[in-house]
């Protein structure tokens, strides 16, 4: 394939990667931003979403669409519920202490990952896309479903922005993020907000996975990469800045998608991880973030 | 008399707000100087700049003739600037004796031995006690003991009598009076009685700048100060 069309293909792949990454990172950005804690198990919530999508798809035989719709609703709900439980049982008890939360969520990572291994097995699980539609470009065919993923992702991001910026729920979240004590003074039940945010963050990650899993297979180890990538996005985009996360996701997802079409992924990953490290060293609040009060 | 401490145009901004605005300040050696002013006047910010806990946005600080503006906090402590925290900041899990020992070995050296520092503040009997179990007033005294162990040339006391009982405050005032010969003292205080008793000169700050400076009598009579802050003494 000549270069320009190849680049166009890379661009499309990059857009898809960016869309999914933005969605996955949104969940982490919410928890990081509002609760100021690092959830190392975030990738596992994502993985669970994918596993549940496969499972629910298997339950509904025949055309893949009903199973997909079922997963679209069921997986985020289930994963959100699990996250809610975790928040109540563990995070609240350790009082959201940053160090303790990291250690506890690392434990949670292992628990979820290994349970997935035991219940679902070690093989990769393919899931059929809810519809197949091939867009015929002059140089190559491209999956219409992938473009649907981009559109769906954009829609969800817009909805999230709308909730944060224009609704009372979003206002409550933003106040809690800005100044926890002040929020309490205003009568906001910070504990409830935290539980809701943590659950929402996990649910969005699961949703992203449900969208992605027809493109990529579900595998019990698939959570690590999205975790690292989301970290990179949230940190570079800036702690607490959802707009920053989205911009960073676009840039990084695009770069990742394009690079992986042309180059070996390992080198890109090395550079990406080093980049995150140096950004944090030089600018602890990320590129767009605000330092916590 | 040469000044021990001198600032020129010292400023510290947080975003758009100037917590300390263009302050020129001199402190002669051996003096007991009190800094007073309403809340938010910039007193703690100012002494934090001197102690090195905060970096200035602009301006210059000179200590004993040498410029220390860029010097990190730990080097200033080694030169003899001791700072006691406004919010008690001792090592709760170490014993009283260990707290002072750490201070003694960190600072300039050549200071009084830890037992002597504890005796000065009246805590020598509690040397083996865990610092976190001390009564609040005693913890404040431990802070001062640690400051003393650093053999300070400038001892900065940030609201030292806050939370102390009247008896403890009286004892504290005696302590400071006893120190006057050995070291220069810069004292942030809200307790006007303590200020009037101890201070040889008073600097009044308001909204980041120096409003007035002078003897206690002069300050008490100053109308601008009365308007801004003093109320009834």
């Amino acid at each position: 394939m000549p270069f320009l069309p190849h680049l166009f293909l890379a661009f499309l792949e990059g857009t898809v990667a960016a869309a999914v990454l933005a969605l996955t990172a949104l969940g982490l950005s919410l928890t990081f931003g509002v609760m100021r804690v690092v959830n190392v198990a975030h990738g596992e919530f994502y993985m669970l979403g994918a596993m549940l999508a496969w499972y629910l798809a298997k339950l509904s035989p025949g055309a893949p669409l009903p199973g997909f719709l079922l997963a679209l609703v069921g997986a985020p709900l289930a994963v959100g519920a699990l996250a809610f439980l975790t928040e109540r049982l563990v995070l609240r008890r350790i009082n959201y202490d940053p160090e303790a939360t990291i250690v506890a969520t690392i434990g949670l990572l292992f628990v979820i990952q290994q349970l997935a291994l035991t219940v679902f097995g070690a093989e990769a699980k393919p899931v059929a896309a809810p519809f197949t539609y091939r867009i015929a470009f002059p140089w190559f065919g491209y999956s219409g479903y992938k473009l649907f993923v981009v559109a769906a992702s954009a829609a969800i991001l817009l909805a999230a922005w709308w909730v944060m910026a224009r609704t009372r729920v979003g206002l409550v979240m933003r106040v809690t993020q800005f100044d926890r004590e002040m929020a309490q003074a205003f009568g906001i039940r910070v504990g409830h907000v935290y539980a809701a945010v943590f659950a929402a963050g996990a649910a969005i990650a699961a949703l992203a996975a449900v969208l992605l899993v027809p493109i990529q297979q579900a595998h019990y180890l698939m959570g690590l990469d999205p975790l690292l990538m989301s970290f990179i996005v949230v940190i570079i985009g800036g702690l607490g800045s959802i707009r920053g996360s989205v911009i960073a996701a676009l840039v990084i997802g695009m770069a990742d998608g394009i690079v992986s079409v042309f180059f070996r992924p390992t080198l890109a990953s090395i550079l990406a991880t080093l980049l995150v490290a140096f950004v944090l060293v030089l600018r602890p609040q990320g590129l767009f973030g605000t330092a916590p009060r | 008399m040469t000044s021990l401490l001198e600032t020129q145009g010292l400023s510290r901004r947080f975003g758009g707000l100037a917590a300390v605005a263009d302050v020129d300040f001199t402190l002669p050696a051996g003096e007991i100087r009190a800094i007073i002013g309403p809340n938010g006047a910039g007193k703690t910010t100012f002494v934090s700049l001197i102690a090195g806990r905060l970096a200035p946005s602009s301006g210059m600080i000179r200590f004993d003739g040498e410029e220390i503006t860029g010097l990190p906090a730990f080097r200033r402590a080694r030169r003899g600037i001791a700072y006691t925290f406004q919010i008690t900041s001792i090592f709760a899990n170490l014993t009283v004796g260990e707290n002072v020992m750490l201070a003694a070995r960190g600072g300039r050296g050549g200071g009084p031995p830890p037992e002597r520092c504890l005796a000065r503040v009246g805590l020598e009997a509690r040397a083996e006690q865990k610092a976190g179990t001390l009564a609040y007033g005693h913890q404040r005294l431990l802070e001062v003991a640690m400051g003393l162990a650093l053999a300070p040339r400038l001892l900065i006391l940030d609201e030292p009598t806050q939370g102390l009982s009247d008896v403890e405050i009286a004892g504290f005032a005696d302590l400071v009076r006893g120190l006057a010969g050995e070291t220069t003292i810069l004292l942030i205080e809200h307790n006007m009685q303590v200020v009037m008793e101890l201070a040889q000169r008073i600097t009044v700050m308001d909204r980041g700048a120096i409003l007035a400076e002078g003897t206690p009598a002069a300050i008490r009579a100053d109308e601008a100060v009365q308007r801004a802050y003093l109320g009834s003494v």
Partner: protein
Amino acid sequence: MSRALGLHLAVAAALFLAQFAVGDYAQLMLTRIMVLAIYATGYNLLFGYTGLLSLGHAMFFATGLYAAALGTTRLGLSAPAAFLFAIFLGVAVSAAIGAVALRAKGVAFMIVTLMFSQAFFLTVLYFGDYTRGDEGIVIADTIRVFQFLGQTVDLTAPAVRYNLALLLLALAIGASYAAVRSHMGHVLVAIRENEDRTAMLGYDVARYKLLALVLSGTLSALSGATYALMFAYAGSTLASIQYSIHPLLWTLLGGAATTLGPLLGTGLMFTLVDVASGLTNAHLLVVGVALILLVLFFPKGILGTLRQRWLGWLP
């Protein structure tokens, strides 16, 4: 003799005698535990005593591991020379990483160490031609039998391995005990308790932290080199995030800021995982549950809780 010193000697004696009482499999496992306990002890210096939580110590362990493995197989170094080379590299790498990473505080430091370690791991994979990735480097038996000070040391012999590991562990714990009781150790604890205050007392906090990190990293590298030379294997899994989490877990379990806690934690966790592996292939589940329970109920670990409640003299 103080109780603390007596306890250390008793533990050393018990470990020495244990080799005669247990079977071959247990002896091998104990050897492994002791070597990795050196890693945990090094980690504890930074985590327990200085209060800095690193999520990237695998890069220090792997530095020693690969220095020894590549040193013997590619650079033609003898085992002792490779060992020294590994320690030297351990110092260099931890100093370099520390100079950069320590500028980040708190949560940022954790993530920075995690990122550096991940980059290290990916680099190991990238140079798979040399490191042979997951398959790993195998060190030939011939290299592991060498001359040292006129004696023949045979690292293929279980008894030699066991006692050498015990010796190294004793040295590591001894060094950590000495460090903790020294003035430097007191300053590190002060930094952990109240960094701001410590700086205001005239201590160069940045330098002390760097020192702690270098000591910690070098001990980890020493453990890695020993591991490679004793078990003849250097594979990329040992450089992965898992191996950064392990010393954290072991130290937490045994008791951070205790000298014997890391050893206890390593031993317990190994046994737990070994037993769990026999039952299920999801043995990391045990690790995960252990971490959560520890953080929730026993943040001070076994020895730490013992020290707090009953045995205040525990080192």
